[in-house]
């Protein structure tokens, strides 16, 4: 699933994200941009003109040829710090730029430093915005980025955005400005509609990838599928499962028919099973399939029903299956022919009972990534554990996402998975009850874990067998899972859990805390003990000014800190802002008129090379 890729990319270092170093680089940038030519393609000539660097000229040519093979961001960041000429050459040869926080720098800084960018990965809002913890219209607008890049990078090929606000106008500008544009990926974005998509479909003639993933797309009534140009397309991936608008099926069928390179197709909820069947017959080369509704829109016809299983059997290459948005369970066995090939299966929008589920999963021996609802129960998880020995990633979402709902999965499911799936690397598990014992078992059985996210939905809920806090369970995770980089905690937790995290969580980059801890000491343990911490998101926990001050030596080395509903005072936040000029300290939600109000509802702070942003809405105060 594409979402996996973006998740994994969060674990790499990003460029321009370490101000203490980059302040130096920024100084170098200013120097370089004044001495080098403005036309990016003529770097060699430019260097030749600079007689002072004649010995460097040869070196830089060599470097350019070498550095262009360097792909990894971390390597490139390291190379750029060697010396001025390495910095310059690296900047000229970097073609893909990753920006983890769109407000960490201005678009102009990007285009001034990197001259030959073909691909941009940009992230906007912090993750807690997904849970309504941030008012709408906070920011993260794509507009300034697209307008700056339109002039600087006419050769741009790829844009990958996460949690950005993108308008139809932005998409129109993108489609107009980049004739060679190939890949548009919008994850958890909003602000646009089918009319914007139609423009991209129509004008980007070299389009290979159009992936709309978990984004809010307004239905403008535009038949965007028909806007793709006639003739053979270059499409390799088309994902529109999040678009809640009916599509012109004949046009889609035609599009698929003239897209010989199409490998990934993710249909939305409004494509029926019969329509899916027709598409499959025309596109047996697919490797990744989102099945749409997987139900009939009308009552099933009395005449011969299509042989769905045969259609699936013909799709010998399908390794990734998702969709099932309105699943009619009696049709689920149709997918059996492809089960043994599947490496990725997403049932997380389908309410599947254990009895329906077990016959399917028994065939999925090669499964590596599995997402599902807790409707499969502990029993279903036991079946997964028995069959899916190669499982690397598991996500179990709640069918009924309320605190007081029935919990069909529990520590039993977790224990079973830990015993059966020893290669597990990443888990997200929603449940109503859990025990320390099961979490400890997972820490011991699954040493490869890098991501452990456990959400016990009842707040402050202890181990339901012993009645004790969940400290020991999470403590074991940080102690035993030596590769752990991402952790989300829940349940009843005291400062002790945080002590463990600070002591053992040496590789943790992302930490999510909610309704946990007793005192400032908890946060202090983490801020002082976790050297790799990059992203810290905390809500409704008793951490105040003392804790906040403890982290001042860290904040420049972090991507962001989010603290909402914590007992912070405005005075302390102001102190932090004053002490750290390159840190943007946003207080969200406070009433501007009431300056006497010292209570800070939400603190969101991040480093920035270019100072506070200029698009601050009324409900945000930058201290």
């Amino acid at each position: 699933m594409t979402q996996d890729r973006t998740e994994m990319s969060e674990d790499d270092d990003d460029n321009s994200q370490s101000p203490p170093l980059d302040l130096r680089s920024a100084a170098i940038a200013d120097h370089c941009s004044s001495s080098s030519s403005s036309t990016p393609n003529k770097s060699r000539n430019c260097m030749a003109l600079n007689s002072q660097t004649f010995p460097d000229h040869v070196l830089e040519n060599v470097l350019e040829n070498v550095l262009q093979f360097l792909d990894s961001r971390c390597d490139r960041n390291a190379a750029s710090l060697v010396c001025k000429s390495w910095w310059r050459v690296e900047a000229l040869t970097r073609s893909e730029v990753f920006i983890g926080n769109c407000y960490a720098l201005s678009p102009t800084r990007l285009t001034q430093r990197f001259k030959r960018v073909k691909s941009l990965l940009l992230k906007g809002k912090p993750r807690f915005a997904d849970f309504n913890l941030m008012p709408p219209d906070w920011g993260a607008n794509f507009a300034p980025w697209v307008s700056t890049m339109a002039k600087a990078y006419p050769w741009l090929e790829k844009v990958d955005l996460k949690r950005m606000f993108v308008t139809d106008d932005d998409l129109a500008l993108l489609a107009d400005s980049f004739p060679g544009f190939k890949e548009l990926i919008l994850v958890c974005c909003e602000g646009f509609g089918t009319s914007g998509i139609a423009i991209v479909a129509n004008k980007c003639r070299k389009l290979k990838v159009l992936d709309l993933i978990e984004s809010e797309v307004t239905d403008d009534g535009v038949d965007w599928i028909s806007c793709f140009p006639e003739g053979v397309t270059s499409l390799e991936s088309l994902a529109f499962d999040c678009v809640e608008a009916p599509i012109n099926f004949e046009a889609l069928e035609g599009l698929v028919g003239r897209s010989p390179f199409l490998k990934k197709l993710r249909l939305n909820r409004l494509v029926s099973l019969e329509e899916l069947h027709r598409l499959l017959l025309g596109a047996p080369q697919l490797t990744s399939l989102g099945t749409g509704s997987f139900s009939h829109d009308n009552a099933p016809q009395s005449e011969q029903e299509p042989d769905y299983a045969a259609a699936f059997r013909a799709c010998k290459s399908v390794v990734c299956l998702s969709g099932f948005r309105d699943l009619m369970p009696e049709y689920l066995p149709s997918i059996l022919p492809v089960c043994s090939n599947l490496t990725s299966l997403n049932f997380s929008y389908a309410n599947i009972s254990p009895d329906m589920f077990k016959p399917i999963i028994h065939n999925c021996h090669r499964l590596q990534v599995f997402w599902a609802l807790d409707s499969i129960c502990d029993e279903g998880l036991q079946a997964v554990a028995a069959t899916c020995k190669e499982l690397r990633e598991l996500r179990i979402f709640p069918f009924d996402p309320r605190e007081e709902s029935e919990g069909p999965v529990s520590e039993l499911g977790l224990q079973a998975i830990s015993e059966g799936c020893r290669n597990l690397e990443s888990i997200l598990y929603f449940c109503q009850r859990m025990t320390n014992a099961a979490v400890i078992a997972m820490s011991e059985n699954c040493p490869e874990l890098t991501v452990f996210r456990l959400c016990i939905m009842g707040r402050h809920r202890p181990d339901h067998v012993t009645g004790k806090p969940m400290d020991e369970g999470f403590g074991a995770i940080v102690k035993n899972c030596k590769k752990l980089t991402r952790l989300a905690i829940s349940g009843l937790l005291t400062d002790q859990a945080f002590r463990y995290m600070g002591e053992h969580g040496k590789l943790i980059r992302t930490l999510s805390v909610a309704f946990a801890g007793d005192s400032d000491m908890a946060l202090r343990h983490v801020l002082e003990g976790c050297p790799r911490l990059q992203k810290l998101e905390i809500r409704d926990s008793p951490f105040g000014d003392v804790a906040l001050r403890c982290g001042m030596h860290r904040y420049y080395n972090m991507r962001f800190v989010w603290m909402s509903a914590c007992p912070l005072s405005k005075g302390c936040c102001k102190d932090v802002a004053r002490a750290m000029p390159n840190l943007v300290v946003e207080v969200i939600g406070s009433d501007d008129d009431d300056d006497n109000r010292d209570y800070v509802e939400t603190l969101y702070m991040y480093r920035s090379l270019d100072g506070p942003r200029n698009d601050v809405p009324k409900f945000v105060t930058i201290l």
Partner: protein
Amino acid sequence: MMGSVELNLRETELCLGLPGGDTATPVTGNKRGFSETVDLKLNLNNEPESKVGSTTHDVVTAVSKEKSSCPKDPAKPPAKTQVVGWPPVRSYRKNVMVSCQKTTGGTEAAAAFVKVSMDGAPYLRKVDLKMYKSYDELSNALSNMFSSFTMGKYGGEEGMIDFMNERKLMDLVNSWDYVPSYEDKDGDWMLVGDVPWPMFVDTCKRLRLMKGSDAIGLAPRAMEKCKSRA
């Protein structure tokens, strides 16, 4: 929005119950803000505290029952109080799940997200009415959402709308209390609490928490309905 935590969180120790709302302080006589000033507890449906069903005189008994049971047992969080953004499931997924329930649960429509505005607040919120089973739950959720904006000038009984007492309704003219109103399918602005909860969920298009003085025009209609029922 982060309003699940009251201002007194700073002073409290670790609270095993919910950090916001009912557990930390006794209900009686407290300047609680929204859920104190507005009584949505008509208890017409599914209210766990009331044993008898849908008559309005249960309002008084239900309310007094709640008061006498406080302070609540901190180890057991009060059931059915929704906290914003918890559990952390994206609203996109929540929306989709509700429409999935349609195929299993019968004729329920998709998620009922409605805008909620409060007079004087800088931004609107959205709530999914399907997430709540009663007016009480909705009231709690709204109070959490907007707690930062309410003055809570009146705690306890004075703030509540007692539909049986005309005099109290007249007090609303001069009060700063917030009155929940909603726009129904016909475009009319109605006072919240008159109709059974499921009907309300079906007909409510948006919510507005009006200043009491603005709501007085809605009161006579409510009074008529109550009197005819009693």
